[in-house]
């Protein structure tokens, strides 16, 4: 076992982990507050990434301009999705099924639209930070470091927002006792919209920051979303702490398997870990039922 391999595995793991965490954070927020399993989360990722790509390639703006545009586009897309597909069925019987089908449908539509507008070729979104350094023979990209720092910072910001701000507390209030929240003059449906928009912004940011490393095509959002789903289930649906811990656990685990047993084992390895985990703790690491809601 070489130092290089270990450093490679840790670096890759922490990088993957922060990416998974970032995607899972949005997914788990929406589940925790709205009880919506948003299978369009990957599509929102793609919307953010393509919006940034478009700003760079067609408007010839630098990535630092494209980044906020991508984030805003993803948030707006998520909010409109809430208005059109989620809001009408809120509180109705069949909410789970109809939103599941709707979000899958949105996902497919976004891929198809991206295919029509941008064609299936891989697009390159420039990194916010270029360049890299070598540590123990492993290339550490500055963009990768940025992704890790951004992800950790966003976990902290979301946590502080939910804990200490008026609107953040209102989100928790709505998730814990919806009727009482409305009697406290908290607009429940708008609060759902806020949560979904925040979640969309997080997915969009992930999309813009990751596309330089993984390239962008109409299906790019699918894998990050599946990984985020796994992370969310592993960490416990609705748990923010769970998303953070599980993101890093799974990222590092996958990375070690990949470095030492080859890429072919990475995904199966993760699934084996998940299966074992769910047998031991069916609610996930910090799942609702064992630990508190938002």
């Amino acid at each position, binding site marked *: 076992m070489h130092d290089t391999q270990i450093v490679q595995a840790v670096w890759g793991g922490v990088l993957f982990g922060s990416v998974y965490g970032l995607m899972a954070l949005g997914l788990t927020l929406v589940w925790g507050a709205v009880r919506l399993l948003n299978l369009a989360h990957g599509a929102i990722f793609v919307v953010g990434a393509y919006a940034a790509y478009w700003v760079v390639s067609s408007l010839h703006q630098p990535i630092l301009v494209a980044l906020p545009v991508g984030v805003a586009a993803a948030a707006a897309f998520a909010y409109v999705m809430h208005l059109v597909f989620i809001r009408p069925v809120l509180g109705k019987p069949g909410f789970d099924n109809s939103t599941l089908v709707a979000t899958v449908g949105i996902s497919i539509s976004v891929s198809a639209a991206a295919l029509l507008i941008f064609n299936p070729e891989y697009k390159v979104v420039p990194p916010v930070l270029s360049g890299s350094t070598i540590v123990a023979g492993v290339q550490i990209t500055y963009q990768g470091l940025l992704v890790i720092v951004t992800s950790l910072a966003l976990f902290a910001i979301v946590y502080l927002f939910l804990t200490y701000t*008026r609107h953040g*507390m*209102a989100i*928790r*209030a709505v998730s*814990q*006792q919806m*009727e*009482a*929240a*409305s*009697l*406290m*003059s*908290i*607009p*429940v449906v708008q609060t759902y919209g806020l949560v979904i928009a925040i979640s969309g912004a997080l997915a969009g940011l992930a999309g813009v920051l990751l596309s330089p490393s993984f390239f962008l095509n109409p299906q790019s959002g699918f894998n990050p979303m599946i990984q985020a789903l796994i992370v969310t289930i592993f960490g416990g649906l609705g748990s923010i702490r769970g998303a953070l811990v599980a993101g890093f656990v799974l990222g590092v685990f996958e990375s070690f398997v990949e470095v030492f047993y080859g890429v072919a084992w990475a995904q199966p390895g993760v699934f084996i870990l998940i299966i074992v985990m769910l047998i031991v703790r069916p609610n996930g690491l910090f799942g609702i039922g064992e630990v*508190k*809601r*938002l």
Partner: protein
Amino acid sequence: MLEVKGLVAGYAGSEVLHGIDLVVNDAEGVIVLGPNGHGKTTLLRAITGLLPPRAGQVLFDGKDITRWRPDVIAAAGVVHIPQGDLLFPEMSVFENLLMGAYHGPTWSGRKARLERVYELFPWLKERGGQLARSLSGGERRMLALARGLMSQAKILLIDEPSLGLAPLTTQQIYASIRTVKEGGMSLLLADENANHVAGLADRVYLLETGMLVREGPAQELLHDKALLESYLG
């Protein structure tokens, strides 16, 4: 201040309220007395928009609020302290109180409001960090009341404040409601026990099977033992 006209409400397949007419004037304490299951909770829920009425009107300060959303009705100053308290269980006592002052204009004055409810229930201050779900039944009721008082309520609708409480706690709760009322608050209180409400009632309505069957000054109705017995048993 609050006027209900011909209110009809109910749940899928069953009509609970069959045309309620009721008035609460400024700074007045109005009690709706009736046995369990006769529509007291439904009445309060229909007024504050949790259960959209099928017919009739609810007027507040001259505005028709019948079709308003519950959060908009609350923001206008009609504050409902619901049955079962409905606290935010995973939030602290302090956070529950803050949520009572959520409404924009109220939020900036939340510190002064906190001091006011601490005066009423001093333990809320000492145990602000405790999670609401770990409180006793009586403490929950006090917190629910205090949370409602954090708002800029113009009228309080309170659903059976004594439900499930021990006699001593019950006394404490009604004493604090009386303090609030003496501060000039209008009250609409649903109850099934005539003895509890003696100190804060100005006027009483008797509710039976979804209809208001009697109305009169508290002085008169609450002392009519024969009448009360025939309605409340």
